[in-house]
């Protein structure tokens, strides 16, 4: 599976979820339609989006998505057409939310980010785990071997649904005190 698209270069570290979507936009009960609030809390956010109207790959600096657990951050990116975020590091909850919503969180090093911020367009091969810039430069990354399936099939909930019986069995054994030896 390959994600190919234009880049939104966001040359900042520590972009928190309050900047991605401020809390006053969290008053809905659905996961859709949030793209219009993307980067509403970020100085220059609207201008950046306007300058890259068809971008689908966000390239940014370390600790992207820190702060609140709001999955709205991922939903607003999805709704705006983003399918990957490339950064040197992610905050944990956003990282999980990205996978669970079909946004590939691509981790590359700082030097790679320097290069990728300048690329107008990227090709991300999720199976080969490579990012290809228009100038031919290629950068490798590693996806979470479990979660990457959620990118392809979008199935976090389905995955867990399939575990329900096993969990109940586990819980019964825990209740009977049968789990000690195995931990």
């Amino acid at each position, binding site marked *: 599976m390959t994600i190919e698209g234009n880049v939104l270069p966001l040359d900042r570290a520590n972009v*928190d979820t*309050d*900047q991605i979507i401020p809390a006053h936009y969290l008053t809905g009960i659905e996961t859709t339609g949030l793209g219009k609030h993307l980067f509403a809390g970020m100085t220059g956010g609207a201008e950046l989006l306007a300058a890259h109207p068809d971008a689908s790959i966000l390239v940014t600096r370390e600790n992207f998505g820190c702060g609140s657990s709001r999955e709205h951050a991922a939903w607003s990116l999805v709704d705006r057409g983003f399918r990957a975020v490339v950064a040197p590091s992610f905050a944990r909850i956003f990282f999980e939310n990205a996978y669970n919503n079909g946004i590939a969180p691509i981790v590359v090093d700082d030097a790679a980010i320097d290069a990728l911020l300048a690329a107008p367009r990227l090709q991300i091969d999720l199976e080969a785990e490579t990012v290809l810039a228009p100038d031919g430069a290629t950068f490798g990354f590693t996806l979470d071997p*479990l*979660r990457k399936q959620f990118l392809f099939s979008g199935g976090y*909930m389905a995955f867990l649904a399939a575990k329900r019986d096993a969990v109940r069995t586990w*819980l019964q054994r825990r209740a009977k005190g049968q789990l000690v030896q195995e*931990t």
Partner: protein
Amino acid sequence: MEMSRSDLQSKPRSLFEKVWDAHVVEELAGGNALVFVDKIVAHEITTPQGAFEIERRYEDKLFDPARIIAINDHVSPAKDTETAIQAKVLRDWAKRHGIVLYDIGQNGICHVVAPERGHVEPGSTMACGDSHTCTLGAFGAFALGVGTTAQGGAMLAGCLIVQRPKVMRVTLDGRLQHGATAKDLALTVVATLGFKGGTGYVLEYAGDALATLSMDERMTVCNMAIEAGATTGLIGPDETTFSYLRGRENQPTGDAFERKVDGWRELAADPDAVYDREVRIDLSALRPMVSWGTNPGEAVPIDGAVPANADAGSLRYMDLEPGRALRSIPIDQAFIGSCTNSRLSDLRAAAEVLRGRTVSIPTIVTPGSQAVKRAAEREGLHDVFQDAGALWTHSSCGPCLGMSMGVLAPGARCISSTNRNFPGRMGTGGRVHLASPAVVAASAVLGRIASPDELAVEALAAG
């Protein structure tokens, strides 16, 4: 809650590992595990979407409604139609499934309500669609803030998928003094590790100093683990923990409770446990901390100044310059509240500063929950705050994240007992300085960033 019986294990383990091991249902690829969740805390902002998903695709079947508590806490009562609908969705959903609901008149901030109602137990696992769920690590629980999908998965299947975190031991020596508080410790931890320095780690607190910290203080410390990027914070249970839980609702009484305590006593790190990283902090060296920038790591002692090497973007947003003495910064609004600092001891600390004094700027004081509110009122703290000219009102998450009841005007500068000073956090264009309740109270009196000892000096001079 069943114990992992560390004495049967061969390899010495951290407290985190013991709790983790006792909840892994299945190891998964890539260092992930299916981790059983003993209790889910569901609030109105992040729950409805997951509840709908289960309703639409999984026949509305929850794994175990008895393991869920629901709380309308972020904007309660509702500020508009949208938030009214959120509250109604949570209310109707809870009712339909027989889920315990804390609503208008008996609610509060979920991380305050869950422990005070006895829902948090040592050695248990907790999940909530809220990043400050790490607060509950103060009880020796593995408490995880998660997204809506993950919370939904836990509602559906009783489990989270968790990438096994590394463990950092944060050893606390000495004792808090010189007006330093748990909030100053929490800010020091973030400043020490850096804003993302804890990413990938559980912060397991250790050291002799822990015994000197109350549950309220421990919750404040663990609350801000997320501000260093940490997976969560964790403090082993001790007599302080057991005393807190003894007699709480949703806990057994008498022998039944004491038997649980016996199990909880085993929840301690093995002496030889190996940690992925070690940090030591001497509490006796701490001073009241105040943030000057736009993330909680950008904080310095109140006697200090904006650093010479301060981030230019942070300075621009905060309208400050390097070298500016913190105490010289004028303030437009003061707020005491949030899951970080709105428990009874926080309110007492603020009240001690405000007693007999008058605030000079709009000041809002919100208790962490209805129970905290009533306890504070029984002690007359509401009179202290209101005599001082502060607003004393009901519990709400609203002001902390700019959702209601104290949103800042653009450019307004607020000193706040909360946990985040991100751009726009408390209102678009608003500027936030994080500090302890006592420092917020002193600043409210003087209309600039100030520490309580300045008021003491003034009182002496005046007397």
